[in-house]
């Protein structure tokens, strides 16, 4: 099987949120109970264990005016997935290019939620496990596109071979740059070994709530262990060796000197 992916063109998204509804309907996820107005038309206010995708609203100042953008947010299905790396029970794994959580193995420790650079994994208190977008693997493995892609009215989301999507995305970025969007760029081609949700964005990633250079949570693991153990070694040497061994030796030598 060749590598599949999805491409979101932010310049085409109209913020209808049909993808959110399709996701909930296909995956039988319940609605959110916390629907307070937080000063934005965004709804629900954040991703959760039962909201696997949502549209984020961004108002960006451009050329003296304000440009309104919408970005679909969900698990990016990273090639180098932090959630998979930190999972202590092996519940999170790649099935092909997609990252899935085995609900029969997950212990609900929440480590994956804290390791994800995109805040896309969440613990589900009623179920007790972590849950997230699974790329509609039941649909994709039967040659259907994911529910959110299928429903997108303006065609802002495309699903297909990753290589073909990248070629199309580069062409679209070039076209945008030549037509009044000089900061247009592609996000996800190389980040974390390559994401399986690619984005055409009209500006720097930080303007769209995306980390500029997302890191694998375990990247600095060796340095963290070594740093901690070196600190333990320094603390063993300075107060303990100095105060206990060194003093004992000094006391013993002075006692020996006194006896002579």
């Amino acid at each position, binding site marked *: 099987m060749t590598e599949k992916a999805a491409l979101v063109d932010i310049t085409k998204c109209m913020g209808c949120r049909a993808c959110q509804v399709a996701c909930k309907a296909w995956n039988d996820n319940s609605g959110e109970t916390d629907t307070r107005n937080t000063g934005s038309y965004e709804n629900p206010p954040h991703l959760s264990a039962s909201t696997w995708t949502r549209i984020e609203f961004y108002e960006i100042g451009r050329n003296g005016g304000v440009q309104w953008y919408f970005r679909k947010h969900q698990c990016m299905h990273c090639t180098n997935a932090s959630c998979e790396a*930190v999972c*202590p029970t092996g519940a999170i794994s790649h099935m092909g290019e997609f990252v899935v959580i085995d609900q029969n193995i997950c*212990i609900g420790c*929440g480590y994956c939620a804290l390791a994800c650079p995109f805040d896309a994994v969440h613990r589900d208190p009623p179920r007790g496990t972590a849950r997230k977008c699974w790329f509609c693997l039941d649909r994709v493995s039967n040659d259907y596109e994911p529910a959110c892609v299928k429903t997108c009215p303006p065609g802002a989301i495309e699903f297909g071979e990753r290589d073909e999507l990248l070629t199309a995305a580069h062409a679209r970025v070039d076209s945008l740059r030549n037509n009044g969007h000089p900061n247009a760029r592609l996000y996800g081609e190389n980040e974390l070994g390559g994401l399986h949700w690619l984005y055409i964005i009209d500006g720097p990633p930080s303007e769209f709530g995306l980390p500029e250079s997302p890191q694998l949570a375990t990247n600095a693991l060796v340095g963290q262990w070594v740093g901690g153990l070196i*600190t*333990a070694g320094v603390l063993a040497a300075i*107060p*303990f060796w100095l105060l206990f061994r060194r003093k004992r030796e000094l006391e013993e030598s002075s006692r020996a000197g006194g006896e002579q």
Partner: protein
Amino acid sequence: MITWGSPIWLYLWLAGMAGGAFFAAFLVDRLMGGTQKALLRIATYVGVPFAIIGLILLIADLGMPIRFWRLLAEFDVVSAMSMGTWILFVWVAAAVIMIILWNIDRFIPGSISIDRARPAVDLITGALSWIAFVFAALLITYTGVLLASSNQPLWAATILVPSLFVASAISTGLAVVIITALVGRSQAISRRMIARLSEADAIVIIIEMVILIGFAIWLGVSAMGGATEGLKLLTIGTLAPAFWVGVVLLALLIPLGLELSNWGKEIKGRAVWLAVAVPSVCVLLGGLILRAIIVAGGQM
């Protein structure tokens, strides 16, 4: 959204204290030529229940506590939580066996003498204490690596969280040994030894302060998105009162001032409470607040 709440920072505090107490007591005993076994016993007797309570909190915090056994069904060197579970398991196992061997006379009927086996028992206890020492060092490091190996800027923007937690674990470990020796009125531990432990804590606190300053500077200059916001949250944001009063004053400056003011002095009578017990209590509370604000702050 808070994923790890109070059970986790309590667990990190208890596990750190357990490992830190054993680490410190083992070093003192070995460096003093094996003459401070009473200290090692206090650290072990206090550390094991602390570690087990911490483990119960950790299990209670799981979404599926009944599947806890799965942590021991996997051994993954890349996952700090997997490694931490094994480290805690080995440390508790070694410490429990040490406790059993120290009290082996009580488990054997009086008619059976184990005098002939005594050298072997002592050899095994000595070997286990070395194993427990290595795993105590790993345990106190793991409590920081668990947080640092994530994508929360306050925890992951620097590699100093493990170092900070190591220093704090040894400081709180010394404090719990000192308080237990004082409250238990242990005859085997002299006032002079308690004063010296307090002096060791002063040096640990100075190193902890240096690490904390380095941590703050690193956060301030880090290119990781959210790192400077994390620093602001700690120093001028909603967690600032807890940081300045709970960590800077309670965990560091007050105990350091009291410990330095009594450096080298002979502490007599009730003066021991102000000179040694008060700073130790401050260190314990400050260590708890440090973990609480780092764990909570990383998720805000």
